[in-house]
């Protein structure tokens, strides 16, 4: 059934597509195959629609959100856009706190959806956005902060949606690879898949940024999302801008998939795992997440010029 009562109803149930060209061995007795879950096919074009919808629905159910409420969230991108869409359709206001060094497309999109943007200093990165949002929540007690980094509904959306969809479409799954940010995708999907396929590997790919993003004054200002539980993961990779860009371009050139830069980081980790499995002569079905399309990142210069030039342009920007 591809008819829906409203845009929100159409979220999830995204396609899983094979990568016959980038996979080490697509056919044969012991294939090592890569599969991309196209989360850019969600209503606002990213995986974050799942978490945004789940968090708002949960807050309505427990009475925190009532008609006319204003939602507050530290977000520099996709979560904000997803929240803005759901908030508009359900009749809520939205205030996003975002670092000033985020791409212009995201700001314009948020403004079109009617969100208000409060900037936090670039030097503080997302940590500062989280801290600023927490201060605002104290100043404006009637604003409702859904707080994607600690909201169980974020992970639950993936336990209920992403995980079951993957297992239905790929019963022979051996590995799941996704980006590590709020950790919601990996925690929710990972827990579901581990329950059903106990020996599955759950692999995290996190972006490694330029130094500006790590501009803490003190190690004790560090941040680990409340949702994070490292027992769910099997391994965790830190991926440089250069490697993420390289894989983003491989994905277009070899498989025709135009994805955002964080997807390149995830593919990089997936390929590292695929090569290891292949070297051992084992079979594998490795599913990974395409978080969003590349449209919102065109202005970053990621898709033009040499890789080295593009990587340099990304320095200091939040690309995932």
């Amino acid at each position: 059934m591809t008819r829906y009562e409203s845009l929100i109803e159409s979220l999830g149930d995204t396609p899983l597509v094979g990568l016959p060209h980038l996979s080490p061995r697509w056919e044969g007795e012991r294939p090592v195959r890569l599969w991309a879950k196209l989360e850019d096919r969600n209503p606002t074009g990213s995986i974050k629609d799942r978490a945004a919808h789940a968090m708002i629905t949960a807050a309505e159910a427990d009475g925190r959100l009532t008609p006319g409420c204003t939602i507050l969230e530290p977000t520099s991108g996709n979560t904000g856009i997803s929240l803005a869409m759901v908030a508009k359709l359900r009749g809520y206001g939205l205030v996003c706190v975002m670092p000033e060094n985020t791409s212009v497309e995201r700001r314009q999109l948020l403004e079109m959806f009617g969100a208000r943007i409060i900037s936090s200093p670039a030097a503080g990165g997302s940590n500062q956005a989280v801290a600023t949002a927490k201060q605002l929540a104290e100043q404006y007690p009637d604003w409702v902060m859904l707080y994607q980094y600690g909201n169980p509904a974020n992970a639950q959306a993936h336990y209920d949606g992403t995980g079951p969809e993957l297992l239905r479409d790929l019963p022979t799954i051996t590995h799941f690879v996704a980006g590590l940010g709020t950790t919601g995708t990996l925690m929710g999907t990972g827990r579901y898949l581990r329950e059903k396929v106990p020996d599955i590997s759950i692999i995290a790919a996190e972006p490694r940024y330029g130094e500006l993003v790590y501009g803490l004054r003190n190690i004790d200002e560090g941040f680990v999302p409340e949702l994070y539980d490292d027992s769910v993961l099997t391994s965790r990779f830190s991926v440089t801008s250069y490697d993420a860009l390289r894989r983003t371009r491989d994905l277009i050139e070899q498989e025709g998939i135009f994805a955002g830069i964080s997807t390149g980081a995830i593919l990089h980790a997936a390929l590292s795992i695929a090569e290891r499995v292949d070297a051992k002569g084992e079979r594998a079905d490795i599913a990974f997440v395409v978080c969003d399309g590349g449209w919102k990142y065109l202005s970053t210069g990621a898709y033009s010029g040499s890789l080295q030039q593009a990587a340099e342009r990304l320095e200091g920007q939040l690309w995932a």
Partner: protein
Amino acid sequence: MAIEVKIPTILRTYTDGAKAVDGAGETLSALIDNLDGSHPGLKGRLITDEGSLHRFVNVYVNDEDVRFTGSLETTLKDGDSVTILPAVAGGSR
């Protein structure tokens, strides 16, 4: 045996501002002891009094988080690259 260790901005007060330093050791634990010899105080910022990695410090050997490869007992070989980073909220969520 030389292992390149990338130092985050926040810890460069211990390395005279150097972005990367060389160290030696067959395990991460031995490497950190070795680094502390040439850059006194560094170990105390990475490892807690209980002897485990600080909660807000992430260490990667060849881009892989050591918490999933044996933590401080992760083995090292010549030419490995070690990256130390503070845990942050990351990018655009």
